[in-house]
């Protein structure tokens, strides 16, 4: 468990070149981004609970500094892919609240036309490749993004996020070996929030220092850091991205973090069940990435309470407006069920008009 970062660490990481060069504007932008994620999800939760959405809702709240910090470093040829807890990464790469909220509502205006849902946000135009529901299944895809980057001779990196439970899917190790063997610029980022559903890290994985250290088995560099401190996240990730760009080498990062809500909304046991309410409260009080960054910016005189309130109010308004947008958006037609299955059919190319593709009599 990370020691509270409030006392000491900011000092150092704020000085890291990648953070030192941030303008006040930039810093406020990063704060705004984290606030947007939190308010978006709180709004989503509210409307999920009144039945506006179906399926699962995996909330990212508590982990905002990781998606925000890592993706803030992305250049044109850097790409991102993650698992089903994907709202934070989606907003962080620049997706709009409207298309994201509409996706949760299952509307035709959603980022995936209401076909993917909470677990399957995508925005290729923002180098964001989802949003994947099968635990660990995205890790070979991340490898492939890195392969594509290298094949095309670009200086880029693929950031592939996974959870502390996902590390026990075999394809992750297959991917690590191939990343090392082919020297691919993939950065696996383990968001260690201590639990995979109701199972604590200790009950699912046998480790020495941390999960990222397993990378040693494949001669891959790794680092573990405190995921609640945005400066720290940026500083640590920047090194990995530089390495990927300069040497085309993979790396595994692990960020300590915590999710305040249940695994998904359905998760009743997360309070007083598999984890103590006291633990949750402690994290909220002592390890909240937003509080921390806010206090840092205030101490840096970059932010005032008033400004904070203003930014927060903005985020809240944007979120509730996105809910209104989603609510008023049309649902997909039943006919549209057959769209987006085959590229050639969608485009009605020669290939798409040859032979039968769908088999309901």
């Amino acid at each position: 468990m990370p020691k509270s970062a409030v006392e000491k660490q900011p000092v150092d990481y704020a000085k890291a070149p990648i953070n030192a060069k941030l303008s006040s504007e930039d810093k406020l932008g990063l704060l705004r981004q984290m606030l947007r994620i939190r308010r978006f999800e709180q709004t989503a939760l509210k409307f999920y609970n009144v039945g506006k959405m179906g399926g699962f809702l995996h909330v990212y709240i508590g982990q905002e500094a990781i998606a925000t910090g890592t993706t803030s470093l992305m250049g044109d040829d850097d790409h991102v892919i993650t698992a089903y807890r994907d709202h934070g990464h989606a907003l962080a790469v620049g997706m709009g609240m409207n298309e994201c909220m509409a996706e949760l509502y299952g509307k035709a205006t959603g980022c995936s036309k209401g076909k993917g849902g909470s677990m399957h946000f995508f925005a290729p135009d923002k180098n964001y490749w989802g949003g994947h529901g099968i635990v660990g299944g995205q890790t070979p895809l991340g490898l492939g993004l890195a392969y594509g980057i290298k094949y095309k001779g670009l200086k880029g990196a693929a950031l592939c996020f996974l959870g502390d439970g996902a590390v026990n899917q075999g394809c992750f190790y297959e991917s690590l070996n191939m990343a090392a063997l082919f020297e691919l610029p993939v950065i696996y980022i383990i968001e260690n929030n201590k639990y995979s559903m109701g199972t604590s890290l200790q009950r699912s994985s046998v480790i020495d220092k941390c999960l990222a250290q397993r990378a040693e088995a494949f001669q891959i560099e790794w680092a573990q850091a405190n995921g609640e401190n945005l400066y720290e996240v940026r500083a640590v990730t920047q090194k990995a991205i530089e390495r990927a760009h300069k040497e085309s080498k993979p790396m595994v990062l692990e960020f300590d973090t915590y999710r305040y809500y249940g695994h998904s909304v359905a998760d009743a046991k997360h309070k007083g069940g598999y984890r103590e309410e006291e633990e949750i409260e402690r994290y909220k009080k002592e390890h909240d990435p937003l509080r921390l960054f806010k206090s840092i910016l205030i101490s840096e005189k970059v932010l005032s309470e008033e400004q904070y309130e203003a930014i927060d109010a903005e985020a809240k308004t944007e979120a509730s407006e996105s809910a209104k947008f989603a609510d008023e958006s049309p649902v997909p037609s039943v006919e549209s069920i057959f769209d987006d299955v085959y590229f050639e059919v969608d485009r009605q190319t020669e290939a798409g008009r040859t032979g039968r593709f769908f088999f309901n009599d």
Partner: protein
Amino acid sequence: MALIEYRDALNQAFAEEIERDPNVVLMGEEVAQYDGAYKVTKGLWKKYGDKRVVDTPISEAAFIGMGVGASMLGLRPVIELMFWSFATVAYDQIVNNAGQVRYMSGGLINVPIVIRGPANGGTNVGATHSHTPENWLASIPGLKVVSPVNGYDAKGLMKTAIRDNDPVMFMENTLLYGEKCEVPEDEYLIPLGVADLKREGSDVSLIGHGRSVNTALKAAEILASEHGIEADVLDLRSIRPLDQEAILKTVAKTHRVVLVDESKPFCGVSAQISTLIMELAFDELDAPVRRVCTLDAPAIYSPAVEHLQLPTPDRIIEKVLEIC
């Protein structure tokens, strides 16, 4: 008789078999301390402890293979896949190790395991979580596939599956877990390979498995009240072994068939049943066999639409009226 939920009927089956046979062990993600993602194993870990109810890491290939290996030494693992969709990451262990090792050993080995969990669409969890693999797995000689529609059948079939000496793929349904039905206090078993005629009629045969049987029953009521058409509703219950006699019997009785199947149409279970009727009861047919399957696309998330991707009473009625 007690009126209980589908999930609790299964829970009773596990409890009874755990007490009956020391070799029965439940394993899977969150089945123990968390009581199961869908509470199907609720209270069993508390009651029977770490040895009989085991939480596993998210390593389906390893824990299903582990169950197969342990079963070769006489254990009877009952392994939960939180969703049957996750069989895709353990497919080799299921198909080749559970399914083929008996054959390749010339019958020296048998694999008395049950792999179980929900296999259904309709819950807005998206395409990756909504697979219905009964056709994939029933196509493999060496595996058995079961898919009960209510708690009574689920309990009786699960107890039989656990005692069966071959690998049984037991397919449940998250949309059914909460449905209640009467379940006897006394122990009972339901054999695999025996279909159940859930409604009697003489004009048309509606044949399905799992939740599609409920949809067929709803359609049958409307057909009776609004169209004066009386339907036989045959619940296959088990897909392999298959109760061929029951199928031929209802076909010989009504001469008209509509198959209802919540899985996809291409090479689906409904295609096999249609083919079987073609092969063995062609002359009994007064009309071509019709099918009502899930619309042939990946599962759409949109809650407003997905329920229409699955078979509905309306679509069944439409098909029936085409041939009656």
